[in-house]
Each structure stands twice: as C-alpha cells, then as structure tokens.
C-alpha cells in the first residue's frame, strides 16, 4: 500500500468535491451530443409532468409521480496490449408510478411524447386497478414537503467531456506496467462512467432535476505457472467512486498495478493458510464489503418486514431488537449518509422527493435505526422516511435501496501498525474477494485479494487460500481496535443487486482499518 493511495482515498472520502458545470462539447463527440441536446430541448418535461399528474388525478389516484430520465454510459475495456471494447450508450425514457386504492401501479416507455405520457399513465392506473381488486393491505405513504430544486453531484471533471484517446492510453499504460513483472501472464483493465440526468415531478408539487456522475475503473492481473497449471488473479484495490475523471488522473493507478503484479506472483508461491482461529486486521479496501453485506443489508426495513422474502431475503434484525441489540462492540458507530461527498449513493433527493439525510444505524454498538422510504415509514417507530427510494432506470419501479453506510473511525490516532502490534497470531487482509452471506444476514464468508501473516505483532510473509467465516453479531462484537481518521478510506459497489425484477444500485462504504479477535479462517484450496 502506497502512502499516496491512502492519501488519495482519505481525501476522496472526506473532502467536498468542486461542483462543475458540463463544459463546452468537445469536437470529437459533438454530433451525438448535439442531437441529444436537441432532443432534450424539444422535450418540455414540466409540460409532460402536468399531463401525467393531471391524467392520474382524474383517474382517482392518491399519489402519482413521473420520472423523465436520461442515462449515459461509457465503457472502455482493454487486455494486455489491445483494446477490447470502446462503447457509449444512452438511454432516455419516462416512468409513471401511481398509488390507487392502496396499490402500486407503474408503467414506462422510451417514447417521450405527450400522447405516450397520457397512454402510459392510463396503463399504470390500469395495472394498479386490476391488482387492487385483490389487495389485502393498503399501502400508505408519509407526507414530504414540496421541493423545487436542482442538484449536481460532486465531481471536478465530467468524464463525458474527456477524449477517449486519453482514457485508452492510460489503460494501456497500466497493462504495460503490470506485464513488466516476470510471471504476470495476463492483465485486463477497464474504466466505465455513468451519468444520470433525472427529472422528478409528483402530485405533492415537487419538481427536481439532478445530474449525477459516477466512475468505475478496475483492473485484474493474472499470474500463472504453466508447468504446474497453477494460476491466480488479483484485482484492483481502487474501486468505484462518485467522482469524475479527476479520479483517473489523481489516484495512483500505476503504482498500484505494479504492486498488484508483484503481489500476484508472490501469492502464487505463498504458503497455503492453516485453517483455524486467527485475529484479523482488515484494511478498508476489504472491510467495506463486509459492512455492505452484514450491516447495510440487514438494516433495510423492507427486509425486516419480509417484503424481500422471495429473493434477497429477510433480516435477523427484527423490530423487537431495535434499541436493544448489541450489534457490534461499543467502539463502533455505523452511519447511513446520502449526503457524503463523492459517495456512490449520494443524491440531493431520493426518487420520491425526500431530501438526502445522515443518521445512525448502529450507535455505540447498539442497533438504533432502519433505512426507510415513504411507504415503509408508517411501519417504522419514528414514522420517518430517510429518503432511500431509488430506481435504476426510467423503466424500473422505484423501491427501497441502500444509502452509503460507513463505519466511523476511532477517536485516537491509531495506525494499521498499532493494530498489528497487538496481534500474536493473525492475518492482515487487503482488497475484496469472494463473498457470500445468507438470506437473513447471519452467516457469511469473505475472501480477499492479499493476505499477510501476522506473528507476534509483526507483518510476515504472504498467505493464500484464505477465507473467513463468521456470524454477523459475533464478528462485529469481536472488534477491539479501530484505526483513527488517517486510516479512513471509502470503497463501494457499482452494481449492488436487489429486488424483483433485479435492479442495480451504486453504494459507498467508508471505514478505518479495524481489528477482530478469534475469527474462524478456512482454507479454500479444494483437495
């Protein structure tokens, strides 16, 4: 781990980004952007919203919203010395959601015209009406203030204004650097960028425009031993961020890929772990995923209400445990935060007009609150929506999704080495690897990218074939050491899946380095 990487991620996690307006269109992409701009200008979103909301009101709904959204994506993928794919896509359409007799109905179309908005709104009501005949428990929503606003995410350089050439050159340079290490046989690298231009209007009177940028770079370095047939891959520690192209320019990608190449070759020769109980020192590039799976998901109220029972599952956090369960050790505080700068789930407002918020889920180790939306709020103790509604497309119905959930750093200035110094027999883990957790979020298993033995307070040689298995509350209660603010980094997932039909959500998780006592480690090399 280089100091520069730490500094970068730390800064990214806590500094406010500079908000930038999209700059003038670059010449190389002018034609398609010009057409997009012309289409956008031709669409009067407020007039279309009036049509949808008035049509819905006339048909007797208690609530309606329309989202008219444009999504742009760019993906560049390379492998060794060649570019495998350069693509751009864009997607435009609208969706109308109605609440009719306590029953949701939703319909959507790519044809953004007044006649189609009228037809689709009727279709949304038809769907709700057909189902409402058999509806057993009527859905209700808590109110929210009327909002008229424009919001832009914190990025410095819009990646859609940066030429493809610069991006390709950076990726090929990364690959070249990785291949310099003897024993590295394959390398792939990619960068993806997403832009959401979202418009929301509702029968509450709200009208909200949002412009969001996210970046998703990654690489994978494979070392092989052709004589034994052995191979393994190491992935980048730097993951997706709610940032613009400045992430590609400022993060130390070159030194990280060089290190990954050396690590992959070393790991191939490393000793296979002896299964048993170990103390674990977990780096933020690893721990974010454990937080995501075992803190983020079980605190979703819809899971606790069995709304996700058929797929994602329920939660071991039942409502009677609120305010009582010692979820984690007393030094731990987990905060949900949709206002966190550069967070992947950071927004100005959610997809039903509720402002972004910050609140504690776990306070001093005790489970104290849920993630909620307007239709879940009436079933939560404080009847409050924390603004967690999200849809991944104009064509998807919005439903509860995870905000950024982060473990707060310790108050002392504790370093990684300080935590390691207190370990007799342990393992230091960097990077996220294989992950799996049960449908109530009790039992989990996590791998990683690199594993270093810790012996008598010192970091030793590399290990391989490591995964740890634990039970959520046992694991978090076994934490006896947190790094200070200087060790805090932000990781995250670009595509967190949930719901039926499955939808994708981008979400960040920040944390300091942390130490856990006596965790069960298994050897994953099948004999």
């Amino acid at each position, binding site marked *: 781990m280089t100091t520069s990487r730490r500094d970068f991620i730390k800064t990214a996690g806590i500094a406010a980004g500079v908000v930038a307006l999209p700059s003038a269109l670059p010449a190389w992409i002018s034609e398609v952007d010009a057409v997009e701009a012309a289409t956008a200008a031709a669409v009067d979103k407020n007039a279309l919203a009036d049509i949808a909301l008035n049509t819905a009101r006339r048909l007797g709904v208690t609530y309606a919203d329309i989202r008219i959204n444009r999504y742009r994506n760019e993906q560049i993928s390379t492998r060794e010395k060649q570019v495998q*794919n350069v693509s751009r896509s864009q997607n435009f359409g609208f969706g109308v959601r109605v609440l009719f007799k306590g029953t*949701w109905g939703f319909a959507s179309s*790519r044809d953004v015209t007044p006649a189609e908005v009228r037809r689709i709104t009727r279709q*949304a009501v038809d769907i709700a009406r057909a189902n409402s005949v058999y509806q*057993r428990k009527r859905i209700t929503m808590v109110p929210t203030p009327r909002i008229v606003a424009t919001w832009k995410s914190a990025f410095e350089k819009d990646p859609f204004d940066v030429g493809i*050439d610069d991006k390709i050159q950076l990726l090929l340079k990364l690959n070249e650097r990785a291949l310099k290490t003897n024993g590295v046989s394959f390398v792939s690298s990619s960068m993806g960028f997403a832009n959401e231009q979202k418009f929301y209007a509702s029968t509450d009177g709200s009208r909200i425009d949002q412009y969001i940028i996210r970046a998703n770079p990654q690489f994978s370095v494979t070392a092989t031993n052709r004589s034994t*047939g052995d191979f393994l891959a190491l992935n980048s520690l730097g993951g997706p961020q709610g940032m613009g192209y400045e992430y590609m320019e400022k993060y130390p990608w070159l030194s990280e890929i060089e290190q990954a190449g050396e690590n992959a070759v070393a790991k191939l020769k490393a000793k296979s772990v002896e299964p048993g109980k170990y103390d674990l020192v977990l780096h933020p590039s690893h721990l974010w995923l454990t937080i995501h799976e075992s803190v983020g998901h079980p605190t979703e109220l819809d899971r606790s209400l069995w709304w996700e029972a058929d797929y994602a599952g329920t939660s071991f956090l039942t409502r009677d445990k609120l305010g009582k369960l010692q979820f984690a050790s007393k030094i731990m505080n987990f905060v949900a935060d949709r206002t966190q700068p550069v967070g992947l789930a950071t927004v100005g407002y959610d997809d039903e007009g509720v402002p972004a918020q910050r609140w504690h889920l776990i306070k001093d180790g005790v489970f104290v609150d849920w993630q909620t939306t307007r239709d879940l709020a009436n079933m939560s103790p404080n009847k409050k929506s924390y603004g967690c509604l999200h849809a991944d497309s104009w064509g998807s119905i919005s439903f509860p999704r995870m905000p950024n959930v982060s473990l707060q750093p310790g108050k002392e200035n504790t370093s990684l080495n300080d935590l390691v110094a207190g370990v007799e027999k342990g393992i230091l883990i960097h990077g996220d690897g294989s992950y799996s*957790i049960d449908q109530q979020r009790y039992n989990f298993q996590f791998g990683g990218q690199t594993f270093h033995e810790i012996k008598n307070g010192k970091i030793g040689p590399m290990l391989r074939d490591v995964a740890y298995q634990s039970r959520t509350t046992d694991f978090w209660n076994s934490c006896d050491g947190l790094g200070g603010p200087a060790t805090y980094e932000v990781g995250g997932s670009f595509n967190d899946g949930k719901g039926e039909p499955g939808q994708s959500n981008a979400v960040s998780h920040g944390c300091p380095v942390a130490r856990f006592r006596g965790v069960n480690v298994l050897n994953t090399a*099948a004999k």
Partner: protein
Amino acid sequence: MLLTEKDAREITDKLLSYVKADDATVNVGSENYSHLRFAANSFTTSGARENTTIGVTVWIDKKRGSSSTNEMDDESLRATVAQAEQLARISPVDREYLPTLGPQTYRPVNGYAEGTSNISLQNRARAINDVIAGCEKAGVIGAGFHQARGSAGASATKNGNFNYARSSLVSLSTTARTPDGTSSGYFLRNHFDVAKLDSKRVAREAIRKALDSRQPKTLPPGTYPAILEPQAVADLLSGFAFGFDARNADEGRSPFSLPGGKTKVGQQIFDERINIYSDPWNPELPGSQAAQGGIPAEKIYLVRNGVLENLIYSRFWAKQKDKQPTPGPVNNIMESSRPASALEDMIKATDRGILLGRFWYIRGVDPRTALQTGLTRDGIWYIENGKIKHPVTNFRFNQSLIQLLAPGNVEMIGASERVGSSEAQGGSSALLPALKVKEFHFTSASEAV
C-alpha cells in the same frame, strides 16, 4: 409493440445505409415487460416497460467502436452510427477483428407465445390472488414474483447477414414462511408459454415445503451424501454449459486446463452417465437460432458419457487455433444416458443423507476446481434408512462443481425438467435432473431461515 420482421429489417437497413465504415454489425431489440410482486400476503409492486434499443458496432481500418441508443428518430439513429464511427477512428487496431458474417441460413426455433408477451392483467391478478389465498388457508406468509417478457429483434451485418427472432418468458416464484419465521419453502418454474406455467403447483410446493420444514434440528456441518432436487441443481449449474471456454482452458486458467498448456478434452471428467449439451430446437427449452457471433446454432455436446468432448471456441480463438467456431451453446441441457431415477427412489436408496431444494448466494471461490460457496435455503431435510426423518437448519457449503459430477460421486440421476436459477429470478432456464451424490461438503451451520 414488439417489432415485426418487416419493422426490424427497415431499421437495420436504415442503420446500415448510414454506415460509412469498412464493416459493421447493427442490431435492434424491442421488449414488452411486466411484473407483479407480492409479499406478506399482499401485493407490493407491479409495473410494465416498453422499450426499443439499437446498437451499432463498426470497424474502420480494423479499429472498432460501438454505440447504442433507444431514441428511434432518424436523426438519433444517424448520430449513433456517427458516434460509433468517431469512436472507431480514435481507437487502436482491434487485434481480434474478424470480418462480420455474410448471409447465413437459420433454422427457426419456436420459443414465443403471444399470451406471454401480452399478459392479461386480470388473469395475472387472479392467479396471484389464488397463490396468496392458498398461503392464507395454510396459515403461511407468502411472497413471490411473477414476470412476463416478450422480445423481438434483429441483427444485420454490412456483409449481408440478417437474423430476426422473437422469444418470450414467464416465471413465477413463491416463498412461503410460517408466521413465527422458523420455517420456509420455495418453488420456482418458468416457461416461454404462460399457458404452460403451472402457478398452482408453484404455490402448492412452496407451501408444502414450509409446512414440512417446521421444527428443524441442527446437524453438525461436514461431508454428507446428498440429494439435490432439480431447483438446487439449477442454482449450481444453470450457467455451467457457458463456462466451457476454450481460450481460458488453453491459457491455463480453467478447471479444464492441464499443465503445460494442454486441456482435458477427451478425458473422462464426469460420471459416465452424464451428458451436457445444447440443442436450439428442444421443444421444452428452445434456444436461440444464432450462436456466438451470429453463426447458426447447432446441437453440440460439451460432455458425452462423462467425457469432455468440446470446449467453446469463439470465432477469434477458433481462427487462432485452426478450429471451427463452436455453434453454441445456446441452452443448457444435462441428462443421463440411462433410465432416470425418481426422487422417491433416491430417498429410498439413502441410508443417511441430506435432501435439499435450493441454494443461495453462490459465489466462485477457486476457479481451478470451480469451487463454489453458498448456502442452503427454504427446505432441507435429513434422510435415514430410506425415509425423510426430520427437517434440518441451513448450512453453508464449499463444493467443487468438478468433484460434484466426478466419476464415483454421482449415484443416481433423475429425469431432466425445465428449471430456472433462483438467483437469476427465473430469468435463466435449463433442463436439469435431480442428483443423488455420495459427498457434498457443508462447511458451517447457518441460523438463517
């Protein structure tokens, strides 16, 4: 509205007419999608989406660029082609470029039903109401998901190929839980024809499993003989046929690799009764008429009588290795060469073992052995002396798929039926049998229900 062949051809012709690049492939796809979800014995969300998308990939001096849009006016189509060409011009040479295909002849498949694509809102509401009513009557809490999709689209190349196809898919899954949350059952089925989706069976089986799973006992983790129902096999293996990549094997990074750059083709890797193949014209599981790169799909065996017969060569890798590109797989069928065993007979033949119906959160752990981890879920029982003795609490497993099907581990094979992976929410399909295996590796207990 789904595109007819005439509509689709007009669009691909128009796109190709805008192309100035040396080579191009263009495609258009249209979709009608609708869903209804329920949970806690009540409807939650329900919605519909209509969309049409075009995609363009072009090559200029072997340099490649791609672009796509769902805005269908002429100006947007023209701009999308221009954007792909702009991207190609500034990209390095695509070293894996091969000229797009000239005219091909496809043997059509029948995987489309109008009733699925244009689902009746009233019939669907009534069918799901019946599922919920069944749950209420049995005293369990139901949650589930009904989805229906119709798709129609075409792809065309600058070298003269044109391929139009339609397909549809409907699925229903149901999870039933006892109100105290100590027991759960699940069932999922899908089909391309809504008339052949038996929603009553889905509800009946989910409820039965929930009721039969009450008061489970905890068993120690370890290696047990196990019977995997077709759903459990689908959860592990529904994508298996698509992992037989020749390039990965040749490059030494696949469970089908051998030291020194060789592969296991020709070796007995699985039990001698096991056949894994792809057949586009299977009436129960129609596949696509076009395989990778647009080549006409054919029936192909990956594993025949347990022997690894074929790995999948992409057009590029086939050229590198002087082979023919593989015309598949376009679906995943596993069946026994010998007469199938009934599930009841598998139970009768078990002295001591585990019966299970669903796996969850399956993730790769070690690609060398196709080692997977995951959990059991929604119904698992202990068998003793040929009889189901009692339900069991859930386990985590760590199991190599290669070892699962290896000679000596497979004891009995059931009749193959159409199932979908539960993690894919019924969106994937395969024809898979129940399996009775000698060893399955459960590595820890899970309290989750």
